[in-house]
């Protein structure tokens, strides 16, 4: 078997990034869009931790900050979502289509 190198991890991260982006661009349910953004943030973290194997510990420290930011974003996002839900009674992005070029 081929030994597992940094590159392998990077490919997994890129795949997660692609999945997350597809989710954001194609789904209409806001909660699922938020989860897709979480997927991208996780891809970032996998990258950082994998690079941290090459360059030293500060990649991991950065990853901790990314998790902090994910928590902050999730809290704010869900707050906004509750306000939105009160007004609209739906979490479907009808008018809020993301790819409205």
């Amino acid at each position, binding site marked *: *078997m081929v*030994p*597992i190198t*940094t*590159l*392998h991890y*990077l*490919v*997994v991260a*890129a*795949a*997660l*990034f*692609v*999945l*997350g*982006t*597809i989710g954001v*661009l*194609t*789904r*209409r*349910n806001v*909660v*699922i869009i938020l*989860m897709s953004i*979480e*997927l991208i943030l*996780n891809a970032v*973290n*996998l990258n950082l*931790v994998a690079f*941290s*194997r090459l*360059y*030293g*510990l500060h990649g*991991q*420290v950065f990853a*901790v*900050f990314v*998790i*902090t*930011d*994910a*928590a*902050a*974003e*999730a809290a*704010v996002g*869900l*707050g906004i*979502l509750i*306000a939105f*839900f009160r007004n609209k009674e739906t*979490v*479907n992005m009808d008018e809020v*289509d*993301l*790819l409205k070029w």
Partner: protein
Amino acid sequence: MNPVATPFFFYFLSAMALISGVLVITRKNPVHSAIALIFTLLSLAGLYLMLYAPFVAGVQIILYAGGIMVLFLFVIMLVSVSRVERESQFNKQWLVGIAATAALGVLFILVYAKGKSVFPERTVQLPEQLNTQQVAVWLYGTYMLPFEIASLLLLVAIVGAVVMAKKRI
């Protein structure tokens, strides 16, 4: 100490992460998506362990899978799941979205394949036993300013979430 059976665990965990990732973005029921996302998060935690990052792995499980996902489930509970399932799931531009993103993915793979030589061959020796201590030294030492500022980020997030979720302002 080298991890045992690295290739097997790597492929197993990555496959699990990616398959659950696909489930996250394809399920109709947001609860199912959330559960799939938890599986992704847990398998990524496994990958972090393999990369000698036990602290990040722990934070991933406690904070991400434990904390953030609970927030998600709270909101899903506010929304009636049965009605969401009946509404259309994908927007009109899904084909464009997928095509563009897939192109991006191919680009990544090409860049990685071509630019392999960018990365140093040798990996650095990361501390195994003292990982948490070392991360703490970084956080409270060099990274002190971002660490303190991150507390302001969390404060803003709390204030924001409360303002938005309040009944009337």
